[in-house]
């Protein structure tokens, strides 16, 4: 597999970040650091604030306290389009494509910041990555299956060759095999290529398998974090996330 699509990374760092909606903090005092060549994953129960945290990092939700930086440049509360320009690519958990636009147009918008003559070659490169999309270029994104749609969402974000990838549950709705492939080949591949990956993943086991570092979010706070090996040996973590009573997936 070719992994020339993302660019070697920059450090994405959140320091003491609190963020939320309408001035009310949902996540509080979060410290996370994602570094080039590594996959950092965030796991936690539904509603624990994982998506809110990612949105705050990419400028979609206001940061109420703390700082966010990428490659040493502070990006706290910059407009999302500025953060995109700095090389941070973000795939949201929902609303991850432009439904009325064709697959091709979705990719073109993904490459909005590219020079005009770079767009078509980049689409070709992205299609090498997701060949399934080749046959559906004129189809509206809203008419894709869940899996095809996720591929398009990933394809869209790769158009700008981001150096930092922020992915919110990229495997949701995917068949188990496809999900595993996406995580273990593609997403791990970006990191192995030197990109920075910050990933929210529902399935803790799968997340641990490809991560270099994992944070557990609960009630808007990081309650546990560590290397996968350490978490696997942590009885609390195992009980809550990996196969104890409240196991998920």
């Amino acid at each position, binding site marked *: 597999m070719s992994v020339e699509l993302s660019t070697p990374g920059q450090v994405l760092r959140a320091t003491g970040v609190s963020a939320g909606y309408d001035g009310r903090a949902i996540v509080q005092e979060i410290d996370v650091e994602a570094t080039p060549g590594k996959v950092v994953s965030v796991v936690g129960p539904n509603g624990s604030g994982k998506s809110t945290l990612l949105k705050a990092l990419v400028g979609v939700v206001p940061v109420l306290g703390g700082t966010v930086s990428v490659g040493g440049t502070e990006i706290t509360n910059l407009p999302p389009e500025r953060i995109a320009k700095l090389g941070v690519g973000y795939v949201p958990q929902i609303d991850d494509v432009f439904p009325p636009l064709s697959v091709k147009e979705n990719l073109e918008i993904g490459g909005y910041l590219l020079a005009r003559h770079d767009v078509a070659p980049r689409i070709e490169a992205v299609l090498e990555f997701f060949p399934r999309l080749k046959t559906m270029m004129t189809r509206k994104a809203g008419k894709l299956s869940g899996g095809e749609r996720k591929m398009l969402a990933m394809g869209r974000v790769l*158009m700008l060759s981001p150096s930092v990838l922020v992915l919110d549950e990229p495997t949701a709705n995917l068949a188990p095999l496809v999900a595993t492939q996406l995580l273990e080949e593609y997403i791990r591949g970006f990191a192995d290529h030197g990109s920075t990956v910050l990933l929210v993943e529902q399935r803790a086991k799968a997340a641990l398998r490809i991560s270099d570092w994992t944070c557990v979010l609960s009630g808007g706070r990081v309650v546990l974090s560590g290397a996968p090996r350490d978490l696997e040996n942590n009885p609390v973590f195992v009980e809550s996330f990996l196969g104890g009573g409240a196991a998920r997936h």
Partner: protein
Amino acid sequence: MSVFLSSLGFGLISAAVLAIATVGFTLQFAVTNVLNLAYGSVMINSAFVTYYLNVHAHLNAWVAMVGGIATGAVASYLLNRFVFTPFQRRNLLPITIVIVALGVDLCGTFGLQAIVGGSYFSYRQSLGRELHFWGMYFSTLQLTIIGICLVVMGLIHWLLKHTRLGKAMRATSANPSLARNSGVRTGHVISMTWLISGALCGLAGTVFAMNTGVFEATSAQLYIVLMLAAMFLGGPGEAYGAMLGALTIGVATELSAGFFNPQYKEVIAFVVLLAMLTFRPYGLFGSEKTI
């Protein structure tokens, strides 16, 4: 039969004017989420700028129209910048903007009336030769309006489907947050949308006044009903739907005017709109915002 054909002819011209107006109106709604009920007052104010350039500055009406177009563009841009955006920023209920727009419409229309008075106006312009085919009569002026409409629809199609700005407008309409995450400066895209749709509004106002022949400050006041009907018929926020909706409403209202009473145009449009909202709430063709 002859009533039918001549009404059909009128219908096509009305549809042309309505299509230009509704496409601008629907673009505003699709891209910026503002249901700009002040559209009619910007139309008629633009028509009056054309009038002053035509009658007082002695410009050819078609040249004067450029002034009307510019007025529509600038007025709409400023309206968004200084009225709609500040209200939108405050995260009020969406209905607030509608009420604000309604207020702006009244101020725009009656402010104009305060300036120009209650009398009637017409452009200094010849209707041109009368042409006659398939039992329908058209003046050269009317055919020109239809021609302008076709050119404008072609340009809008080209803008939306083949330009970077047009695609960014559609992306902003579909998913503004994701558009920004993709690097699109949606604020800029929205400003451009107001300029473009405002230009359409100014153009629509001028051809509307040309087509009615005699107009006054309040002439476009009920026009919003036709535009809403045409827009909902095609599916709110759909540019192509607006074109087809305008054709349907334009022809339906003129046919009814031919057979019943011209005063009931807006009523007919409203009946069509109500039927639409009852049976196909997303429009004849659409299921969601899909410009």
